């Protein structure tokens, strides 16, 4: 317990970081612990003031940087994010849940009450909102880091840039660019594999095409994606409207560009 007292009373002048979780899988905050080579360096440069997944020492705000994982799905969380925003000088959302509502936003097209009845025997015990929404729909966000999961090197770059007061070097172009750089043969053109690479933001390093499968959109829509053009290409490759719709509706389903693109064949 001495240590807690020590930390509470610490006069550290290092920037304070808080990590906050909403509805999510924990994977994006785990990226910080997965940065095995960088972790001890990072924690030497900043003070991890609030990170319950890693520490029981939970220091009160304000925080210089707040990293927010997860989407808003309950009334309680909709209130909690307001409080988190007030305590954080810079607020960064990490991952597809926080930036686009996550895979749990698939409920947004369904009757949530029916969903609850499917999963829980006593639905009245469960309190949840009808929509799963990204953080930016509730509070101003300073930077949104994409990915399901995020790329840990992009996270470290983002933290370093924020601390240095410079613009982070995080590209908004498509996965296709990464494929070209890796000299991958285009799997959509050469092998007819359905691929969301042309409309998906880079960041993963074009993993799926490098493993002989089509991109399935983990990093969400790139800047100005041409989803209409991709949709016609996917039809040429033999995909049904239902398959195309499912393709856009995964981990970034509620990002508006993908949301609109997923309404394929429904009068659009």
């Amino acid at each position, binding site marked *: 317990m001495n*240590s807690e007292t020590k930390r509470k009373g610490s006069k550290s002048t290092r920037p304070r970081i808080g990590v906050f979780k909403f509805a999510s*899988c*924990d994977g994006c905050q785990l990226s910080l612990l997965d940065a095995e080579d960088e972790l001890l360096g990072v924690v030497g440069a900043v003070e991890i003031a609030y990170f319950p997944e890693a*520490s029981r020492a939970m220091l009160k705000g304000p925080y210089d940087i707040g990293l927010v994982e997860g989407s808003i799905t309950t009334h309680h969380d909709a209130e909690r994010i307001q409080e988190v925003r007030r305590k954080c000088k810079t607020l960064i959302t990490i991952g597809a849940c926080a930036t686009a509502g996550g895979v749990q936003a698939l409920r947004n097209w369904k009757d949530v009450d029916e969903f609850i009845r499917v999963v829980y025997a006593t639905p009245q015990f469960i309190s949840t909102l009808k929509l799963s929404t990204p953080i930016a729909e509730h509070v101003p966000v300073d930077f949104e880091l994409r990915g399901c999961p995020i790329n840990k090197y992009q996270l470290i770059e983002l933290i370093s840039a924020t601390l240095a007061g410079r613009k982070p070097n995080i590209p908004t172009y498509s996965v296709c660019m990464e494929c070209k750089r890796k000299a991958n043969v285009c799997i959509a053109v050469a092998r007819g594999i359905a691929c969301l690479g042309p409309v998906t933001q880079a960041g993963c390093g074009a993993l799926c095409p490098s493993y002989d499968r089509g991109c399935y959109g983990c990093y969400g829509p790139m800047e100005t994606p041409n989803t209409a053009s991709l949709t016609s290409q996917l039809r040429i490759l033999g995909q049904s409207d239902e398959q195309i719709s499912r393709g856009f509706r995964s981990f970034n389903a509620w990002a508006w560009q993908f949301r609109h693109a997923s309404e394929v064949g429904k009068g659009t």
Partner: protein
Amino acid sequence: MSRRGTRTIKIDTLARVEGEGALYIKMAGDRVADVKLKIYEPPRMFEAFLRGRHCSEAPDITARICGICPIAYQMSALHAIERALGIQIDPAVRLLRRLFYCGEWIESHVLHVYMLHAPDFLGYQDVIEMAKDHRPLVEKALRLKKIGNRIIQLMGGREIHPISAAVGGFYKTPSRHQLRELRGDLEWALETSLETVRWTSSLPFPDFEQDYEFVALRHSGEYPLNEGRLVSNRGLDIDAAEYEDCFAELHVKHSNALHSVVRGRGSYLVGPLARFNLNFDKLPEVARKAAIDVGLRPPVKNVFRSIVVRAVELVFACREALGLIDQYEPPNTPRAEAPNRTGVGQAITEAPRGILYHRYALDERGLIVTAKIIPPTSQNQRRIEDDLREYAAYLYACPLEEATWKCEQAVRCYDPCISCATHFLKVVVEREPNSWS
């Protein structure tokens, strides 16, 4: 402290677990009146939105239930779907899946042993603080964790939500040469795991034994990962298809996760302790010897020793991975053809924290009609409450702050993944006078 005294322990957030929950313990004198492990992680309802998705999407969607053990979700989903579709996998694919799972066991066990649980035993708030006094130890742990992650990265592209697992096999399989490159690291990892067994066994453990029903997979030829019958020390011996006949899920008011019980009996324990106790004879010699050398023999009934058992399983996972790499011959095709057809399939695999059950019913287009997923933490939830009922009473004379920390530590013995069971733990221990009823 008088036996009739009133005291309340409150911790708003129990740390170093994956997900969000709270623990509430009410004491009436020296008697524990109520224990509730509250899971307030918001429900994400995967089973509902899996309906209507194609079965080939299930491994990628269910991986998103948990960032700590995505491979477990991929493995249970794949085996269940392959069973529904009647697909036989290539022996080389089977081998690769075991290797993939070893990577996850190493990464997840090292995270828990060194970064989440060890700080409790040594009195640190977290691993960062622990690193100030034990830097070489923490550096070693990070290197060990990285080796687990390296296996996953090589085979699946990235550590979290890897992308290569497919119905019938993999999208792409590694070459022999690529796997052989892991050998040097794994040999170091094996030695370090043996050190981990010795180091964890030297930690202080409370004298706290319980009479558990241990439930784990058992396979005739190997320590269980992907396959086996589900057995217990109380006579259970079933196929995955019989799981729902033998276990029931209860929905309780204080939790967003469902509680599992053995029908007609009650709570049970899944995870390292159960696997070790039921499969000690299947451990490789080096792991068995490491356990015996530190006085660990089945049945281990002290849940606090789970940390040592996890270290023994680290030895297993490193040894196993080395053996698999040496035997590996790439399959002719990375994956078997997956037809679309109606069917129902169930599978159980051993996630790092215990058994993970999946069931899917598919229609003629291969779309999911119904899905059922029972994660290890919801299976352990009732058992954690049962332990705390005994342990809180055992700690009656302990100063309040210390008792609270110890209760947290007891919960962490299970390495609960609340993200899986729906997610963060808040501990409240209330001690009231005998008048409470």
